[in-house]
């Protein structure tokens, strides 16, 4: 009698174990975001978006019956930590792909690890040198700075403005923008008449702006992330500068309008389409993804979804699509990623190829203007 119970019980237990083994193991995806530290404005929305979209995929039954598991670590924006954590993701957590890091510096530090261990890396940072030259295992979802600069210069060319003053922040983002602004100017028949920088923590830029006022340039282009550009907008207004002011996509979130207040009115900048999702023509291929993202983010986090979070959203969806087409290991996922064609995400319409791991064209950006404390597309 006793023996029977024990044998039945042990059979049941064995079956239970067997069942857990047969229910396919989740596919583990690693993520490195700078959730705290100076780049938290990137890392936080990125982590939130990645979590949100993975939860949703799992709620809907996963991909091909398998759940996705997100293992996200905070790099605090430190390259050394990013490298350690990338190694941890690959060696201990055995992830099939890594999303992030948030900044160009960290990404450049992690690239050798991903290349050596042969794990696909989908960076959420913008620096063009991440995918130029193309590296076998490295992709990115953030739009190149080159595209943003092109968008502004195109507009200037159209409106026949030929002299600009540039004012860039002295960090990775600003340095990359400054380089592109200077390289591309000639192509659009534009002359950079003055080239100034400011520190990421500066709280007053009247000195630089006074100098710029003296150059009588037709446009001022400022390249930075919050809060610097808001200070510049306010300083420019205080000095009574009437020259049109352009900003970078680094400030295309409501936060900038809040910080700059009245002074933000009339400022133009290239932005991912996410901030003007509801104004897009219904024929726009991205509209569906964008509206879904904005709505979801509002529900989950009671905040406006921005394009930084969008980079992580795109990365997760790219991996999901790769898994859907049958890949579940690092190499297969990489190969599938490279075959991605016209995937309409948040950052733009992605077309990867063996020669292009950035995957976006000029249509990824729209030029927007601040009107009545909101964004409006410049026609």
């Amino acid at each position, binding site marked *: 009698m006793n023996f029977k119970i024990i044998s039945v019980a042990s059979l049941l237990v064995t079956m239970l174990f067997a069942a857990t083994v047969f229910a396919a193991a989740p596919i583990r995806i690693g993520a490195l975001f700078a959730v705290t530290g100076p780049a938290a404005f990137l890392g936080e929305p990125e982590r939130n978006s990645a979590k949100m979209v993975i939860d949703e995929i799992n709620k809907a039954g996963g991909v091909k019956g398998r759940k996705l598991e997100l293992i996200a670590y905070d790099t605090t924006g430190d*390259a050394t930590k990013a490298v*350690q954590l990338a190694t941890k993701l*690959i060696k201990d957590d055995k992830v099939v792909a890594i999303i992030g890091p948030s900044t160009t*510096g960290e990404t450049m530090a992690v690239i050798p690890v991903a290349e*050596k261990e042969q794990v696909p890396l989908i960076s959420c940072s913008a620096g063009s040198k991440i995918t130029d030259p193309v590296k076998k295992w490295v992709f990115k979802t953030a739009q190149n700075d080159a595209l943003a600069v092109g968008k502004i210069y195109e507009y200037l060319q159209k409106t026949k403005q030929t002299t600009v003053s540039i004012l860039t922040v002295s960090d*990775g983002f600003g340095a990359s923008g400054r380089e592109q602004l200077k390289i591309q100017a000639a192509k659009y028949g534009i002359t950079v008449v003055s080239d100034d920088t400011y520190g990421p923590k500066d709280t007053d830029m009247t000195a630089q702006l006074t100098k710029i006022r003296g150059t009588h340039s037709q446009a001022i282009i400022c390249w930075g992330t919050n809060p610097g550009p808001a200070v510049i907008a306010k300083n420019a207004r205080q000095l009574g500068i009437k020259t049109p002011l352009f900003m970078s996509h680094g400030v295309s979130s409501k936060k900038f309008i809040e910080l700059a207040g009245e002074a933000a009115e009339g400022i133009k900048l290239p932005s991912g389409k996410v901030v003007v999702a509801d104004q897009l023509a219904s024929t726009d291929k991205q509209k569906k993804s964008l509206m879904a993202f904005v709505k979801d983010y509002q529900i989950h986090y009671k905040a406006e979804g921005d394009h930084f979070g969008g980079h992580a959203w795109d990365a997760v969806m790219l991996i999901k699509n790769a898994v859907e087409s049958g890949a579940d290991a690092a190499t297969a996922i990489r190969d599938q990623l490279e075959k991605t064609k016209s995937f309409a995400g948040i950052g733009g319409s992605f077309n990867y190829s063996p020669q292009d791991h950035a995957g976006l064209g000029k249509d990824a950006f729209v030029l927007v203007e601040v009107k009545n404390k909101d964004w409006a597309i410049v026609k």
Partner: protein
Amino acid sequence: MKRDLLLFACFLLFIMSAPQFFAGGYLMNVLVFVGINTMLAIALNLLLGYAGQISLGHAGFFGMGAYLSGIMTTTYSLNPWIAMPVAAVVVGCLAGLIGLPILKLKGHYLAMATLGLGIILFIVFNETVDLTGGPSGLSGIPNIEFAGIVFDSDVKNYYLIWGVTLVVMLFSLNLASSRIGRALRAVHDSEVAAQVLGVNARILKVQIFALSAVISSLAGSLYAHTMTFISPASFGFNFSIELLTMVVIGGLGSIYGSFLGAALLTLLPEFLRGANDYDIIIYGALLMVMVMYMPGGLVRGFPDLFRKIFKKKAESGHA
């Protein structure tokens, strides 16, 4: 003397056998950084713990070593074996030159001066974009090669870094128990008394400052060649403070203490990662508790703790 040698031999065995347990995992990678941080903590401890001179700019020397080595090997394609000593000599000379005037300062003023030095170096790394690559960093730094072996994996780097660290440790242990070590401690306790006894305190301080910078630079070069990428963010003011914390938590004036401090501060965040968003709070609280209850640092705190527990047991045993 014999006891010291035995202790070092045990330590050597401990360090060299570690890969047996951790090889393959990511912890190996963290242990490489424990080695680099140990070297830096020792460098700062020689200055702070022995000679009693504070420096809040050591991340700058660390960064200079990394950048000089990085630039020489990438832009000018020099061999790392040439670049590393050249970097060390340049940083040593610079530290000597700067040390001459600023080491006349004392206490808070010296802290301010070295702080300024660190910040200036940080700005230089950021702003000389053509040379250093600016804020987005310098990539493509080659790994070190020795006798046909390329040090490109965590295990290989572990042996390389710890090999150098152990040499630095042995050298520092020797220095500390030599005539110079005693002179340094004399300067620490009272500069006037030391001078009366015939110690040239001024020169000695500059020498130890330069030596400390040279070791930091060496650590920086090794860091650059193991990471193969460097950016200014790693060499900021925060890192100087972290080094200072390592030295104080580990134990001022103890070489093994520097190792304990570096190991603790490098490994602790890794173990606390499970606590998710609360890790920073726990980390801070732990540091506070340690400073309060182990003012002599880990190196003296742990034996004291054991003694206390043991004593209590003995007492209760008598009763």
